[in-house]
């Protein structure tokens, strides 16, 4: 049997439907539960079975039931529960039918020149339907990504409409031209579908690689902090050994002072010793490598800068918080405090840092003296005396991370003491 042009176009667009179906399925089902090949086979069976039914039986109600069954079979290759599958498959079918109805209504009412010639009228109807359905699937996907808090740029929204519609418009103009042959028409339709599939495939793989890049940069931050922490531990071990070595001599001196009853001198010596043990460069020893690494790294020059650091760190070794978020919060808080302390006279420099976990909340406080003016605009701090751009930027980053955990931040500056209090629910 020889296929009519209409049938060929139907088959081509039916093949394209596989990709539309894939886009819709993606909306509701995310993880495969079997080998990819089975899933691909299920999709391909959609093409084969619906095509055969169309060419042989072609009764709408049967086609509809068949569609439902095959989509359900496709859904079986994904992880989900059956109740959800039943509902989602029905949704998918409704989404796919919706443009078909609209195009049906419009072509029923309007007669464009290119719809008149028997065969072509219905062929164009199919193509328009498929492209619109594809665009619909893309838009729904964007909507879902936005709901999942993924950033969907306006360019993707725009291209989800523009690419399908503009290629479709071009196609319509093309088939409307004079010397159109059957081959030309079919080729142009194939090209139309291929452009639409590849454009968004390209976009997806690009965005996947961006996500991977972002993950890599998080890993890099983590690695950096780990290695800084190692370095700091190394230095402190060396210092401790030197201190131990020194200790014996100190004890001898001390016992001599005591035996010769020079109690005041002995006490002075003793307080010097305790100062030595307190004069440590490790401020955080919670065992949480990221937080320890960050705090100890940021504060490694505190002694040289004559900053008295008081820390209260009480957190479990593992915390349910993203590395990037905690690094953004603590890193910026400490940076801000250190840069504010540069303007404070050396005797008055101190920094209080508190990171406490209790009842599934993380409570953070930094407190330090500052010099100069802090200006407030709409309850937000816009500038301190120095490097105001950087400060505002840092505070914004902190606020964004705190918001993510539905937390709360409070900034107080009175009596030349600047205090930031943060609570996060994790």
């Amino acid at each position, binding site marked *: 049997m020889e296929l009519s042009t209409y049938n060929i176009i139907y088959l081509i667009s039916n093949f394209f439907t596989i990709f539309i179906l894939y886009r819709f399925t993606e909306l509701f089902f995310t993880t495969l539960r079997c080998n990819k090949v089975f899933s691909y086979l299920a999709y391909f069976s959609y093409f084969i079975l619906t095509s055969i039914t169309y060419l042989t039986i072609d009764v709408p109600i049967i086609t509809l039931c068949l569609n439902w069954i095959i989509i359900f079979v496709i859904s079986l290759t994904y992880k989900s529960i059956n109740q959800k599958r039943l509902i989602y498959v029905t949704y998918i079918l409704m989404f796919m039918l919706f443009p078909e109805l609209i195009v049906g209504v419009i072509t029923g009412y309007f007669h464009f020149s290119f719809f008149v010639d028997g065969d072509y009228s219905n062929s164009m109807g199919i193509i328009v339907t498929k492209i619109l359905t594809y665009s619909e699937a893309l838009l729904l996907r964007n909507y879902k990504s936005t709901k999942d808090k993924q950033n969907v740029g306006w360019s993707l929204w725009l291209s989800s409409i523009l690419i399908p519609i503009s290629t479709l418009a071009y196609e319509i103009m093309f088939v409307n031209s004079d010397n159109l042959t059957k081959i030309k028409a079919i080729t142009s339709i194939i090209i139309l579908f291929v452009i639409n599939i590849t454009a968004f495939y390209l976009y997806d793989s690009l965005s996947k690689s961006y996500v991977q890049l972002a993950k890599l940069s998080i890993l890099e931050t983590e690695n950096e902090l780990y290695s800084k922490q190692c370095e700091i531990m190394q230095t402190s071990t060396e210092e401790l050994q030197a201190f131990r070595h020194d200790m014996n001599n100190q004890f001898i001196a001390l016992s001599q002072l005591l035996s010769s009853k020079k109690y005041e001198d002995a006490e002075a010596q003793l307080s010097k010793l305790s100062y030595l043990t307190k004069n440590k460069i490790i401020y955080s*020893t*919670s*065992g949480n490598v990221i937080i320890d690494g960050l705090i100890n790294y940021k504060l490694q020059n505190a002694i040289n800068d004559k900053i008295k650091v008081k820390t*209260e*760190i*009480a*957190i*479990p*070794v*593992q915390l349910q918080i993203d590395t990037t978020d905690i690094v953004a919060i603590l890193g910026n808080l400490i940076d801000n405090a250190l840069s504010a302390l540069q303007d404070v006279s050396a005797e008055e420099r101190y920094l209080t840092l*508190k990171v*406490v*976990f*209790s*009842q*599934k*909340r993380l*409570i953070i*406080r930094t*407190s330090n003296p500052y010099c100069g003016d802090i200006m407030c605009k709409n309850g937000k701090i816009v500038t301190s005396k120095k490097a105001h751009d950087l400060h505002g930027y840092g505070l914004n980053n902190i606020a964004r991370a705190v918001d993510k*955990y*539905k*937390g*709360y931040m*409070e900034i*107080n500056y*009175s009596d030349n*003491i600047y*205090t930031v*209090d943060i*609570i996060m*629910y994790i």
Partner: protein
Amino acid sequence: MLRIAICDDEEKVCSLLEKHIIGACKEIYIESEIDVFSSGSTLMNHLLNGSMYNIFFLDIELNDESGITISDCIRNKANDESAQIVYVSGKTEYDRKLFAFRPFSFIEKPFDASVIRTTLEKYMRIYGNKNGLFHYKHGHDTYWINLSTILYFKSNRKKITILTLTTNDEFYGSISSVINQLRSQGFISPHKSYIVNYRFIKVFQADAIIMVNGDKIPIAKGKRDEMSKLQLHFENGGH
């Protein structure tokens, strides 16, 4: 009267803690009674025989028992969810299990007097000085109930239900009058129909509070910031 228990196998640490606690209590005008235990098992025996304390200063690594075992005894065997546990330790790496006992704070050895004072100040800031009673009328009779046994109040139109760990009771009244009676004694109102005892909160979330008995209390949308602010005030104090 604040009943305080100290438990550490180092005698010197115990006496130093006691000295600092007595000093701090004097400075901030708290009446206190301190019991010192040099082993975990004696403390646990005491608890199982019915002794109750408001605050425990517990060493995490004792010779005979671990801080986890003693905390488990306080919370689960002696069923005391109201007591506040302060862990005193030379180690700063804390086992995640410790956090499940809702520690009040951690004190790092060596400590000085100011740390002890800060801890007691925080206790007073949240729970107040009075070891108060709550009075309510039921018919013609007046009843009273120890505040440290109340989980939360829940209002239903004109009726208010008092829930404790073991019993429930009802009386006629309004949430606002109850709030007035409970000012600065460790109660918070996350919702117009609820007043919650801070010491019995197991988990804080942005939009709800989970009590030690598993009850979930909603936080009204308009009160979320206020609740976070209040927690920061309780936990961190002034500036």
